[in-house]
């Protein structure tokens, strides 16, 4: 029985997707999504628009039925259960507050539908209004609230039902940057306070990195990687993930030596570099790969050769951009590739000018080797060389 694994006391998964597929006509919106979300977790679905993240969320909420596979909530198959019978609640992108009801009535809508006694409703609404810090606004109508306040009403309206999981569909998308950042922290605080599982859909990689316990990166209906923010950033499993999250130097190369955990790779940008080769990748000499190095892991190399093991790429300074907290240096190598470094502003480079010769270096352990068989065949990201930044 495949479900015994899920229903067992060992697992504490709130939501499980088992080989879930969603097709709209010939279009495959979600392809074989198969993962579980733990109780109390802040889980993000991250990807560009059209990657299937919202469809995945809507299948969990019950607004869409999977074409194949199963969705389980608290261990029970709900694939064909309508939304009003599922114990999850959604915070919609445009909040979807009922315009003809007060803040109080909006929040009380769920408990009233569930026939909770009136005194209990009053208590719960009062309590949740305190959590989202909107106590004095209960009598207002949604149109009298600012965007941020409406967002918090939407959150309260969902949380007041004590759902097994809260589903959030780009809830901060409609707000300006400053407010968005304040609400990111606020959301995280509320999630810790109520201890409910959050499933958070976003296309903003920074938002996902800041808030999530784990992130599922989606592209073209496929889940490319599920990992902690740190892991996604440091060890992207595919070129898409490497390019989508943070800035990345993607350097093409060929494996010239592979033994056990290590090996060396001849970069088409010039040098041959030492790198860690995960045994699971099963790379052998002659395989084409892409080496990903985050610009913030790259330093200026001094004129003298330092660590002989460290990679070193020489070239001509193409651009120097001061970004405030960091200084971006792009160099163009003899082979024409651009390699970008994000340097701390404490680095003394006063004498560096565009057109000067310079060399860049980084710790070999910061090279992430991605085999080309994991390149995205459709978008062709694997074929491009140079910097990918978002």
């Amino acid at each position, binding site marked *: 029985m495949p479900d015994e694994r899920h229903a067992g006391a060992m697992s504490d998964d709130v939501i499980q997707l088992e080989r879930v597929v969603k097709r709209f006509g010939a279009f495959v919106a979600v392809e074989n999504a198969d993962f579980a979300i733990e109780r109390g977790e802040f889980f993000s679905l991250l990807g560009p628009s059209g990657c299937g993240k919202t469809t995945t969320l809507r299948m969990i*909420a*019950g*607004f869409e039925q999977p074409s194949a596979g199963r969705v389980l909530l608290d261990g029970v198959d709900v694939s064909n259960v*309508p*939304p*009003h*019978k599922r114990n*999850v*609640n*959604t915070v*919609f992108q*445009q909040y*979807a*507050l*009922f*315009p*003809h009801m*007060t803040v109080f009535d909006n929040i009380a*809508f*769920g408990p009233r*539908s*569930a026939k909770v006694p009136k005194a209990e409703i009053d208590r719960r609404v009062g309590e949740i209004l305190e959590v989202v810090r909107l106590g004095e606004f209960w*009598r*207002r*109508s949604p*149109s*009298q609230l600012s965007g941020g306040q409406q967002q918090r009403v939407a959150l309260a*309206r*969902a949380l007041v*039902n004590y759902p097994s999981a809260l589903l959030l569909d780009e809830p901060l998308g409609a707000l300006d940057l400053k407010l968005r950042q304040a609400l990111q922290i606020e959301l995280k605080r509320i999630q810790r306070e109520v201890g409910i599982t959050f499933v958070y859909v976003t296309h903003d990689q920074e938002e996902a990195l800041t808030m999530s316990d784990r992130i599922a990166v989606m592209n073209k209906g496929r889940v490319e990687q599920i990992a902690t923010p740190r892991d996604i950033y440091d060890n992207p499993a595919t070129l898409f993930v490497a390019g989508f999250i943070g800035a990345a130097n993607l350097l093409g190369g060929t494996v010239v030596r592979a033994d056990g955990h290590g090996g060396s790779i001849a970069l088409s940008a010039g040098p041959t570099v030492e790198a860690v080769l995960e045994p699971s990748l099963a790379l052998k000499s002659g395989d084409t790969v892409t080496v990903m190095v985050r610009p913030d892991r790259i330093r200026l190399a001094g004129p003298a050769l330092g660590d002989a093991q460290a990679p070193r790429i020489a070239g001509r300074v193409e651009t120097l951009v001061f970004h405030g907290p960091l200084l971006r240096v792009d160099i163009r190598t003899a082979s024409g590739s651009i390699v970008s470094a994000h340097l701390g502003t404490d680095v003394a480079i006063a004498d560096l000018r565009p057109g000067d010769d310079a060399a860049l270096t980084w710790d070999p352990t910061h090279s992430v080797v991605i085999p080309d068989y994991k390149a995205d065949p459709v978008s062709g990201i694997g074929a491009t060389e140079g910097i990918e930044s978002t």
Partner: protein
Amino acid sequence: MTVLRRLAPRLLDAWAGVALLYLFTPIFVIVAFSFNDTGRFNLIWQGFSLDAWKQWTDSEPLTDALTLSIKVAAVSTLAATVLGSLIALALVRHRFTGSGVTNLLLVLPLTTPEVVLGSSLLSLFIDLGVSRGFWTIVVAHTLFCVSYVAVTVKARIRGFDWTLEDAAMDLGAAPLRTFRLVTFPLILPGIVAAALLSFALSIDDFIITFFNSGNEQTFPLYIYAQQRRGLGPEVNVVATLVLVVSFGLSIASVVVQRLRARPA
């Protein structure tokens, strides 16, 4: 140039004034002549009198015709509003086989000449052996009012945010409860507007009614019949009353909307 630029708004105002005058002159005349001190022929101003206002209910054929018109309008508006609103909801909310054809057919009664509609209905009633009277008028009025209601409601709910229904269901409301508490209250203004329009159209209709009324006489038919014998000022009184009531309703709806929009 500058002179023209300064003059242009004035000219525009004046032009608007002329247009309004053109629109309202007949209405002023109707209201004014309800105070005319005259007998049968209310064509020439004879002097101010409140007689018509005191005695307009004395004429039994007139009050009977008015009562019938109101009854017909009430029943056909109710029927047309329910049917038309449901059609509009179905057309906006769902794509189904035949929704395109339904859309087209809906507009047909609006574009068909009333004479054609009225006479074909009459031949249908004769074929079916239905004797003409109250109910045939109601059926005829419902027929064209359904189209007006469906088209009006459709236009009003086109911008409706359907995620509100998703939100209600997400919060545990079954489909019927969602409709009762969320969808219906929000589209109600559109439905009320459509119902008012339908009521006005029914009260006003002459041609279709003329074909299908049998021996019954609605208010427009009464005026037409009386005209040959001379129309007294009591007809102007009724016309003025209708005007006041509909004007009052429009003002009330504006006031209600303003009150709702105001911060509590």
